């Protein structure tokens, strides 16, 4: 069950600044650039880095330098994503954007990048941290976060969902399908697969 033979799962590579880029912005989900996110020999100083402190006491940064080596810290992921949208709206051609973190974070960043007009040659992502999944219920469209089991109860409609390997880049989520649709009540044991 762990390999469902589905090919839509994204593949990731450690991040290195693309040589052709004019400026490199790296956004990460945590307070530090996580170990393993960058390719061997690549220093965080090659990027302008945005981090998330996950706390309210973020030091103020009156004038932000938009240069390699600069670090800007946000209170939360939504705080960072909102600022990213504004930043990309006024950016010029030549920018490269990288994201490191869990899969939902990385693909939320991708969605913002794509909406701003960045293509695959201008972005790079590394999946680090938990393997837990965001699940999109194909029946009620509710999203259930942080799923580590093969079967999960939908946060929207309460259905027992089978967690498929089918990944949607648009929704930044895996697909969840009712597991007992044919024989109601026949729900297999959930296995811990995505820790």
């Amino acid at each position, binding site marked *: 069950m762990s390999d469902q033979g589905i090919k839509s799962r994204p593949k990731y590579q450690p991040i290195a600044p693309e040589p052709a880029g004019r400026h490199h912005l790296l956004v990460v989900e945590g307070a530090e650039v996580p170990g393993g996110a960058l390719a061997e020999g690549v220093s965080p100083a090659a990027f302008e880095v945005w981090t998330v402190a996950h706390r309210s006491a973020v030091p103020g940064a009156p004038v932000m330098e938009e240069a390699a080596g600069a670090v800007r810290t946000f209170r939360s992921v939504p705080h960072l994503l909102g600022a990213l949208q504004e930043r990309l709206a006024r950016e010029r051609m030549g920018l490269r954007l990288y994201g490191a973190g869990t899969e939902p974070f990385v693909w939320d960043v991708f969605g913002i990048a794509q909406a701003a*007009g960045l*293509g695959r040659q201008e972005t790079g992502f590394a999946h680090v941290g938990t393997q837990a999944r965001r699940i999109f219920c194909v029946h009620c469209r509710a999203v259930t976060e942080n799923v580590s089991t093969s079967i999960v109860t939908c946060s929207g409609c309460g259905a027992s969902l089978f967690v498929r390997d089918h990944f949607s880049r648009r929704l930044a989520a895996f697909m969840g399908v009712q597991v007992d649709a044919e024989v109601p009540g026949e729900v297999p044991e959930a296995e811990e697969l995505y820790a």
Partner: protein
Amino acid sequence: MSPAATCDVRVREIEPLAPGLKRFSFEPAHGGLFSTPPAGGHVMLTLRDGARVMKNAYSLVSPPAERARYDIIVRLVAQSRGGSAFLHHKVARGDVLEMAPPLSLFPVAATAKKHLLIGGGIGITPLLSHLPELKARGARYELHQLSVADEAAVFERLLAPFAAGAEIRVHGGGRAAFDMAGLLARQPLGTHLYVCGPRALMDAVSGTALALGWPKGKIHKESFGDTSGGLPFKAVLKRSGIEVEVGATQSLLEAMEAAGVAAPCLCRGGACGECRTPVIEGEVEHRDDFLSAEEKAAGTAIMTCVSRARGPRLVIDL
């Protein structure tokens, strides 16, 4: 792919735009409507000048929604291999020519946030079919046309229908007065760049854009290659077992076609890669935009529509 089937078209109108610049308008010779052409598309005309047969590609300049006619603009080239001189001097209203249906190697990018178009001289032609399409889509665009001073007014006139509320500029001073780097540096994310014109302009624009960090995938070039001819040589088609003399004003592809060989081809401008042919012996003078620098250095393939032999003899696997 074998050469596309041609249809007969009649010259419905010839309009002189400037000295050496004429617009030809064609209609289907047997009535009806043409197919809807792709934006940035070109057609291939078969021009029969006595015993000589030339097949030349021309960008459509009529709006893609226009199906009653296809328009092209042809510049009379001083060093013409014959195509532009034939069209300018020998083709008259009412004449019937063979035309292969349009295809586009220079389409409009659907996901672009903005379209930046740069034309040089007659390189304006494919851009003229982009503009109505971009306007119809409500897309954001900006166009810069480089021109010699004498022709600036002609280009102003061709662009006038699209000028209202749009960023369109004709630079009559050519490249000298054109701030290319400034223009490319201030483009918003998601901009796609389209450039058509002389080789030197296209190289300068794409080189500047790449240096500013533009990704290759957002730089689109339309080239009809270098078709200025060169020294005659002999081509040996090993598999077919025939030898073809390539004249000074002929391309290898044209010489093979004249010998009755159905050689693969599509764009006839060194852009699409369709006519790539393995080289067995002899040195190649590469003039295409398709092969990478490494492939050109290796010299194991030739684009027959534009490239030539460097020496007197070339053996190819065809």
